């Protein structure tokens, strides 16, 4: 790994600080690049510009009070973080969740996953210089935000899950709007594929670019579409099933080469799989209460506990150490983007500046989730 201080200046070597303010580093990531012309000799991602100390904050908050923080780590899949945290605390304390609440959680969480992938799709093509797909994707994403707004009351930083259930029940209008959205998004695939997937320039920009192979991905602890793009069918929803996922049918799409194109295809296929999950969950949505019996103030028993869910970017784990009080003694979040970002130190060297953006985009990082 490159040090932050320049080594003795060699002729022809060019140092470039890409970020923390740059249109394509997706937030406050800084890439310290050592260039030979346009070729990258070394790349060093430097994180920490968006650090807010969420984990430390947890230690002075009640378990209930910490919930809103979780959706502010990964602002694109807030509900997934909500779900991970709440499920971890429920497992620790032994709180039962009624089946209707579990189904509602799965539906809303999968909607959130689709919205995250759609946003990634748009911004990734924008990184490659295509503007139009961005607005197409946002047009579709807007509908998800409206649907989630109806039940959660917010559009981005949700605090919808509760210990033992969810905050608000869904109604017929929600079910109708979600079904309508599924049909609409499926009718849009042709547009997306004609505009982007079959585009010659797009294929040239992504095929064989930023190859993260199986061994590298496993060595760096990558998860999510980065790992699945490399051909490893690892998805926490299947590997360590939670909630009602064992009852639902879905496939785990994988790539072969592990290049940017594979990661792109994996994400698009995941959207389709999420639509399938939502369809099945809507069919089976049972009647009943949406909140189980949970104490007003959660006091998990003494001990350590780890629970992980699959977010849009990979495995999100909550490691909680409890000392038996209402406050966590220590809370550590295992966030997927940090591991996925580390691969760049290896993958970026030898590529062009233009590919840096393509590869960084294809890994799909959310910087506030790395910095927390």
């Amino acid at each position, binding site marked *: 790994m490159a040090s932050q201080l320049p080594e003795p200046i060699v002729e022809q070597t*060019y140092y*470039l600080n890409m970020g923390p303010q*740059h*249109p*394509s580093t997706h937030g406050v990531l800084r890439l310290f690049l050592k260039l030979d*012309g*346009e070729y990258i000799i070394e790349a060093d991602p430097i994180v920490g510009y968006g650090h807010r100390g969420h984990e430390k904050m947890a230690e002075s908050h009640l378990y209930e009070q910490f919930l809103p923080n979780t959706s502010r780590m990964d602002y694109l899949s807030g509900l997934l973080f909500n779900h991970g945290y709440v499920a971890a605390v429920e497992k620790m304390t032994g709180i039962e969740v009624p089946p209707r609440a579990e189904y509602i959680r799965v539906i809303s969480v999968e909607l959130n996953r689709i919205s995250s992938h759609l946003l990634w799709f748009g911004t990734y*093509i*924008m*990184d*490659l*210089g*295509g*503007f*139009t797909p*961005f*607005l*197409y994707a946002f*047009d579709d994403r807007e509908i998800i935000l409206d649907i989630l707004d109806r039940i959660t009351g917010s559009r981005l930083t949700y605090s919808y899950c509760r210990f033992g259930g969810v905050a608000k029940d869904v109604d017929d209008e929600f079910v109708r709007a979600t079904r309508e959205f599924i049909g609409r998004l499926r009718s849009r695939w042709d547009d997306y594929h004609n*505009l*982007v997937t079959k*585009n010659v*320039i*797009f294929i*040239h*920009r992504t095929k064989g670019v930023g190859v993260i192979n199986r061994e590298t991905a496993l060595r760096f602890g990558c998860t999510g579409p980065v790992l699945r793009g490399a051909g490893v069918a690892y998805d926490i929803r299947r590997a360590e099933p939670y909630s009602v996922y064992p009852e639902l049918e879905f496939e785990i799409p994988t790539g072969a080469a592990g290049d940017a194109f594979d990661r792109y295809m994996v994400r698009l296929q995941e959207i389709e799989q999420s639509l399938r999950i939502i369809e099945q969950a809507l069919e089976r949505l049972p009647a009943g209460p949406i909140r189980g019996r949970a104490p007003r103030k959660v006091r998990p028993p003494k001990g350590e506990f780890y629970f992980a869910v699959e977010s849009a970017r990979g495995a999100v784990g909550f490691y909680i150490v409890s000392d038996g009080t209402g406050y966590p003694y220590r809370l550590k979040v295992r966030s997927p983007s940090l591991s996925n970002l580390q691969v760049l130190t290896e993958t970026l060297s030898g590529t*062009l*500046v*233009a*590919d*840096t*953006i393509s590869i960084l985009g294809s890994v799909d990082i959310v910087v506030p989730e790395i910095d927390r």
Partner: protein
Amino acid sequence: MWQSLVTLLGPDLARLVVGLVAIMALVQVNALFLVWLERKVAGHIQLRLGPMEVGPHGILQTIVDGIKLLSKELITPRHVDWKLFVLAPIVVFIPVFSCFVVIPFSESLQIRDLNVGVLLIFAFSTFNVLAILMGGWAANNKYSLLGAIRSVAQSVAYEIPLLLVVLNVILWANSMQMSAIVEAQSRVWNAFWMPVAAVIYLICATAETNRAPFDIPEAESELVAGFHTEYSGMRFALFFLAEYSNMLIVAAVATTLFFGGWKPFPFLDFLPIPGVVWFFGKTYALIFGVIWVRWTFPRLRFDQLMNFSWKIMIPAALIHLVVYAGIIKLIR
């Protein structure tokens, strides 16, 4: 002596002055219109409306934006080479005026019908890259420099096939005079009997004007704003204006060289439509195509762009030239 000089040059001088003023007006109005058109077309392609607030359908938006840019402070950052920095936006405008001098807007509407018209256009349009290099170098910014380097490499790569295909047209017309080239297309447009040349010209022209998918010198997702990262206010506006004026030039040249210039469609020549309407109709149709392409395709990578030029375009243009030179020789 002065008397005789004035009588000698008088009509010519008057023609030149009037012509330059007309060009200046054309360039400004064209930029105002094109920026609006681009935003409108982009908007409708992207499922939105584009500018709607100022004037009907936002037609006055560009004027308001222009006033804003004019009223902004001209910032010269401390670390720049200020002589070049100030000069670059001015240099970028030289080709704009020079190129319009020889373009025949209609049968009679042409400022100077030089016998080396084509040569003059391509000689002067090279100034564009000089200005970009000056701006990118003087700004003393890493992104600007990368943008300038890319721009120079790109221009060198794309001017060669561009000139090679234009040679076909010159051979066919047997002249470099713009009016003679238009005359040579009375019966059939060059675009119809040498379509490959027309396509190569259009691709190269897009690359020459740094338009997407060849906009790598100012690729905003990679190089922030490329060579004009450090420019603001009216200096930035001059670069912007030059980009749209260059679009008009390459489209006007394409119209003249390949699409019959001011001549009407051969089967529509009975209509009482003046040549200038035909000319601008064709030119703006081409510009519309260029805008459409920009909002549809992602950007090429730098090395792919160079490979495309050196490995595909230049050999294709060379073969095309040899084949068509033979055909023209046989016909004559």
